[in-house]
């Protein structure tokens, strides 16, 4: 009987997923390609990719990462470095052009095809994820949150002050002599500080016209493609050996270790995967927003993405998708466009946009107290959050500590 129900549920779910994807593909044809709704939709999809990435770290592996903005920053900077006029002195002022067409192919600076930038962003952020993950391996849960937060802040501060870091001379002296690696020019810096790198090259795909900022439809489809790719990765990982190892570590580290799960490798895989997904979205956003700017990389952003994961349901792939779309629209449409005047109408002297982050803070508090498993909970998480076995989990942390001390 139960197996029949199970099969019915699964068919039901497949139907839902197919319907959702069909809806997402057809959606842009009902809206004007330059409309604000479409711009918001592109942003929402990019945030879905971010949230699914963070979900791997926080939801699957249970490592609370409060510095996810670091991966957004590194992904976006990869796009900025490899797809703008920022390094205009590179290659003696001629620039470097790899598989780019249109206006970018005549400009100075480094211009590399978006797909290659995407690969580079994945490589860079995976490395960053592992580097950030390494120091947290020995720490307990809440200390991990603080260390990741600190890394996020460090990256943000380096981005803001990176115009003081001259990398050109060192680069030219060490790497510039190697074949295939061009010089950057002696005045090249790490970032453009608070000014930001802008404009950034638009996405340039084979067999398609170069993208423009006026027509958001192609951006939408690229973002949707990324979402589908990341969804596939998320679902496959969740149901894989690695996914079960993450779950085991999250639920009870001691038991997981005694079952032979390699903690170091498993945790670093979570950081690396989550970081790579954030980097992909970061590179996309760098191009879409047309700027890579230090003010984008603040702690608030990490919490914004975390709120999506928490609202949707930690570890629940579909929940996180819904949470990300909801909060993205709350942030880019509901608060600024619809409800912004509400406090004024109530006789209060402020705009709702001023308190948008209090709203996200409020969501975190309310969800945690009233429905800690999120809107669409993952099944095992639901049991845990409602007290079944919660005591065991709390005890496990202490045991780990004692074990390490002894």
């Amino acid at each position: 009987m139960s197996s029949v129900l199970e099969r019915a549920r699964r068919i039901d779910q497949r139907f839902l997923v197919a319907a959702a994807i069909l809806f997402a593909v057809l959606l842009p044809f009902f809206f004007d390609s330059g409309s604000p709704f479409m711009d918001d939709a592109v942003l929402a999809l990019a945030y879905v990719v971010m949230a699914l990435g963070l979900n791997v770290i926080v939801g699957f592996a249970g490592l609370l990462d409060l510095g996810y903005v670091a991966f957004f920053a590194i992904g976006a900077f990869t796009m900025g470095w490899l797809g703008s006029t920022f390094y205009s002195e590179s290659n003696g002022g001629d620039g470097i052009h790899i598989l780019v067409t249109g206006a970018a192919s005549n400009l100075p600076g480094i211009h590399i095809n978006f797909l290659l930038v995407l690969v580079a962003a994945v490589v860079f952020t995976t490395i960053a994820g592992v580097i950030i993950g390494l120091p947290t391996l020995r720490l307990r849960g809440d200390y991990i949150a603080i260390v990741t937060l600190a890394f996020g802040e460090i990256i943000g501060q380096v981005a803001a002050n990176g115009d003081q870091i001259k990398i050109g001379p060192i680069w030219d002296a060490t790497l510039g002599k190697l074949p295939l690696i061009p010089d950057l020019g002696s005045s090249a810096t790490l970032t453009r500080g608070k000014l930001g790198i802008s404009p950034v090259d638009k996405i340039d795909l084979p067999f398609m016209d170069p993208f423009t900022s006026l027509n958001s439809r192609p951006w939408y489809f690229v973002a949707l493609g990324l979402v589908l790719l990341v969804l596939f990765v998320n679902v496959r990982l969740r149901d894989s050996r690695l996914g079960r190892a993450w779950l085991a570590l999250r639920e009870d580290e001691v038991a997981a270790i005694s079952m032979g799960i390699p903690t170091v490798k498993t945790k670093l895989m979570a950081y690396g995967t989550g970081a790579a997904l954030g980097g992909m979205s970061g590179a996309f956003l760098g191009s879409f927003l047309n700027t890579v700017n230090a003010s984008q990389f603040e702690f608030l952003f990490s919490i914004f993405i975390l709120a999506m994961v928490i609202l949707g349901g930690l570890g629940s792939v579909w929940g996180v998708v819904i949470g990300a779309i909801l909060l993205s629209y709350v942030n880019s449409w509901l608060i600024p466009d619809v409800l912004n005047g509400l406090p004024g109408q109530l006789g209060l002297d402020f705009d709702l946009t001023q308190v948008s982050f209090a709203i996200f803070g409020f969501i975190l508090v309310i969800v945690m107290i009233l429905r800690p498993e999120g809107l669409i909970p993952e099944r095992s998480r639901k049991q845990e959050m409602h007290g079944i076995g919660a005591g065991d989990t709390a005890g496990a942390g202490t045991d780990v500590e004692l074990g390490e001390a002894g």
Partner: protein
Amino acid sequence: MPVAFAIHDLSADGSLVRIGNNLKDGISNGAIWALVALGYTMVYGIVELINFAHGEVFMIGSFIAFAAFGWLGLDLTTAIPLLILGLALTLLISAIASGALNGMIEKVGYRPLRDAPKLAPLITAVGFSFILQNVGVLWLGGSQVSVPDLIGSQNLLFEVGGIDITNGDALSILTTIPLVLGLTLFIDRARMGKAMRATAQDPDAARLMGIDVDKTISATFLIGGVMAGAAGLIYALYQTTIWFHQGFEAGLIAFTAAVMGGIGNLRGAVVGGLIIGCIQQISDNRIGPEWTPVIVFAFLVLVMLVRPRGLLGEETRQAG
């Protein structure tokens, strides 16, 4: 780091005045961080929660002190005896209000989640931190607000061997010492202090011994908030500018201080606060203030990496 710069100064101009002034400023600032760190370390010691909103409680403490100056009519023309009375009253107001705020956060946000997985209350703490930051934005706006320089913070009080001790330094250090001593005495001697130590060691056993654990935890948050409120007043008088974002940075700095001193360890938190204060001042003065956050955060990571148990060792149940 201080030693290296001291040697550098000696070789450069044969005097220790510059590093001395750096350290003096560091200790005055560090005293404020120490007061904030006490709240972190007490709360962590007893419920094992990083009270992420603690920095914001400190910020609200500053704001309340600023408002209290207005209510009490304290300004630059107030006569000195009245000023002292007024400041004492302000200290009382901001300390009690911050204590109450911290206690309220515990009741609403953390108590319902005491049996939930550990990450749950940490997430509500982050939520409260954002809510309070926006309260700050609505209260005094999004930029720095200058506070009347009631004590003449930068005015020279006296000079020792080329090191200028200002009114601000004296205020910071002379308010912190009695507060820390009082707190240590309270924890060591008072009945409630004993209950706190017992609950920190083993809440279940404490409950069996007839200790009201909920009340004890509430008291811990209250006292932590009181210390943050006092720190808020000192910060407002010492820095003479306040803004909504001061709590975020102060929170992270103070948390680093608490970890460095060994979380759960009161004396450690004070020592940690002073050390971080000195590191900040040296970095501000020698490297550039825009790099100070990077230095502090890198130091935080380093402490966590090398000595997660802290310099003086932790006194929580996990160590015992």
